[in-house]
């Protein structure tokens, strides 16, 4: 027996109810549009802009936006902010995306096994989750940052290590409640193996919260990267990231506010897009009304 997805065997996937509901969600579409544009800008932008993101020109420091062809002004080292912003976007978005993949993978695995198995396995796994949660993320952050050489890869790992627990909890709670549902019991009666039930029956039905959680994890990862780099431990100069651009702008708030405003707006836009998408997904995947 296959998973009882609401649209099993009903035409092409893009015609499915879920996708239709998603596309009806205006904010979600806005989010998708925003993030697509942003990503395109980050990928193509640095190639077509007149200035190099890394070139230091001490005679062009602190130029306000729209001075000459410095559309967003220059930073304290005279580098073009727009070019840096877009290059930083690449770094920040990539780091956030991979951190999300990693943490969702780990979190889902742990959550599904713990939620389905229950008993000692479940308890042990969830206590491990608690153990990780017991460490303030700052502690893990500083410890890892001090012990490892900071690089985009390391930052990804650090963010993933501090994010998977939430996913695990959500998944575990969801699986735990799904476990008692009729179709699972039916599957058990049919003699299907635990692994089969976990990953072919329960998981697809739990995909909803997982996808939503994943989307929100990307959003959170962007913010985390910003925070880590802001503190000075994340992406190292001269490689720009939205976080370290903000970090270098703090003290110039009174004299050169655009240094802080522009990256802050970029971060907000990116994170908002993911939040919109996540919300849209949540509504679209809300299959409760359609349960057989």
């Amino acid at each position, binding site marked *: 027996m296959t998973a009882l997805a609401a649209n099993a065997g009903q035409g092409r996937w893009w015609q499915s109810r879920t996708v239709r509901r998603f596309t009806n969600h205006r904010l979600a579409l806005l989010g998708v549009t925003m993030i697509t544009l942003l990503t395109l800008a980050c990928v193509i932008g640095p190639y077509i802009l007149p200035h190099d993101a890394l070139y*230091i020109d001490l005679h062009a420091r602190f130029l306000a936006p729209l001075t000459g062809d410095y559309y967003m002004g220059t930073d304290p080292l005279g580098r073009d902010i727009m070019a840096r912003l877009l290059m930083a976007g690449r770094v920040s978005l990539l780091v956030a995306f991979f951190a999300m993949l990693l943490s969702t993978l780990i979190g889902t695995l742990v959550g599904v096994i713990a939620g389905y198995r229950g008993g000692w396995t479940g308890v042990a796994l969830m206590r491990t989750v608690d153990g990780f949660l017991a460490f303030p993320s700052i502690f893990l952050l500083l410890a890892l940052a001090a012990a490892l050489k*900071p690089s985009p890869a390391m930052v990804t790992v650090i963010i993933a290590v501090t994010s998977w627990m939430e996913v695990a909890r959500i998944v575990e709670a969801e699986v735990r409640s799904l476990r008692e549902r009729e179709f699972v019991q039916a599957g058990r009666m049919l003699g299907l193996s635990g692994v089969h039930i976990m990953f072919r029956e329960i998981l697809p039905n739990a995909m909803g919260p997982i996808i939503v959680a994943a989307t929100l994890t990307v959003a959170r990862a962007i913010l985390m990267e910003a925070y880590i780099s802001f503190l000075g431990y994340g992406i190292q100069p001269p490689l720009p990231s939205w976080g370290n651009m903000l*970090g270098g702008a703090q*003290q110039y708030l009174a004299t050169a506010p655009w240094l802080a405003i522009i990256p802050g707006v970029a971060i907000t836009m990116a994170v908002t897009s993911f939040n919109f998408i996540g919300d849209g997904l949540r509504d679209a995947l809300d299959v409760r009304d359609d349960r057989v």
Partner: protein
Amino acid sequence: MTEPSNSKPLYLRRDVLGVLAVGGAGGLLAYNLLGKSDSTPAPENQNGQPSAKRSGEIVVGLSQEPTVFNPLMAHMETDDGVHFSMFDPLVRMDPEGIIQPNLAIEVPSLENGGISEDGLNWRIRLRDDVRWHDGEPFTGEDVKFTLELITNPKFRAWRTAGHSLVREITVVSPTEITWRMEKAFAPYLSFLTETFMVPKHLLENEADPNAAAFNQVPVGTGAFKWGKRVPGDHLELVANPDYFGEGPYIKRLVFKYIPDITVLYTQFKSGDIDLVGQVYISPDNYEEARKLRGKVVEPVLASSVEAIHLNLELPQFKDMAIRQALYAAIDRKAIIEALYHGVPSVTETFMPQQSYYYNPDLPKQEFNLVRARQILDKAGWVPGDDGIRVKDGVRLSFANSTTSGSHLREMTQQYLQQTFREIGAEMTIANLPSAVMWGDFWMHSKFETAIAGSTYLIGADPDVTNRFHSRSITAQGGSGSNNAQYASAEVDALLEKGSRIFDPEERRAIYYRVQEIIRRDLPILPLFQNTNVFGRSATIKGFEANSNTRTESWHAASWHLGNKPTGSQAGGYPSGGAEMANQSSRTEG
């Protein structure tokens, strides 16, 4: 389906909310009842400054919290402000670098017999009108106790250098004390300017002096007495009316801890703090700060030098040509002018300009990329395919580290990276958090290169054995701070000689030569000498900076507010220009 009962959840929710509300409000109320201080109504505002709304009080803002109040225990510069205000050393060093008597009636020297010809026997004569804050008289017994406590193996003392050479301390009378030095050690007099006296009668019976109650509520002889402390936030000192010296003229001296430099500056602007302490005002804010109304902002020469430290054990740096080429590829002028807004000044040496021993005739560095490339070409370093020079299989590539989050330094690093690339040197940036950077990584020479702002002098004495003597290389089994792993027989000999001679003229010649050699060998590439931007409210009079101490609050006894009588303090407050002030500001964070 049945209706789930809902009485319990509601109860739970009310509970949660209730706890939070009660906790918040109750705590607030309790604290208000307990913590209300004597809020004296604001007197007439002088110059309309909000800082004068508390009568007779000056608030100093510090970006690192003072936590060690026993001046003999290991501590940081930030604790010095409190120590100088609460305690006294035997002798003081004034802003001009001249040692003045303090608790001692006269400064011991060869002329007055205070120090014997061979430098081994010392005699100190003390004042007889000094009392501890608890009323007990200060005597030679306290001096003996203090010196012995420092070398007590169970005591977590700060520096023991010099003190460990003291033998046979004899209290001849309550106002006279003598001792013998194991060997002649000229810097010791300077060390004594930073050695504060602690009371014997309060510490002698402590089983563990490290955990004595005294360390939380100290008692000294200074112009200010211990008031109270709110850990993590601020501490208050109150005036000592029986102080033997000049002042104090204010009722309360408050040290407020504000961990963020930007916030520190903001609170200075808004008048929440009256005087900016370590780490002072960032050069970025200098232009704006200068123009603030009702504030006095002035750059003050520090005694620390910002330099690139090279690890001489790395194959790249063993070649003198590399060091010379790198030095010629540093655009110091641009860095100082653009990044640091012209605040610090160039220097060719580790010796601060205001020191008597500063050598002004050292060859001046010139930013010349062409010449740098020529040097490298001549030395056989050939650019590879990626533009980075190679010789004998060694790439001219190295990492540069400093405290992460130190913005000005990071900008300097990035700029250096760019200019170094133009001569074919690859510098990567690898910054670390402060505690990691200056731990073993620095002290055991595990870095490749580092940017550090260090004070090479101890107590303003020119003896830099700790920094440049070959025996001071920790990484090679020695003991000291020769982190660059520099070894020169000639410098070794000179340093040894210099620490044995007491005559300033003779010593000067020796240290001039040391500076010449260091400049030639380039174990460090000096960038500039630090200048701290001091800021204070214009209502504070009697403030003077002293670069021979590590704190701005070295003489809070002479500070007073507004239009009060000037009394007998020396020279009012300095106006503009580079004043001599010795601040060993170690890093920006």
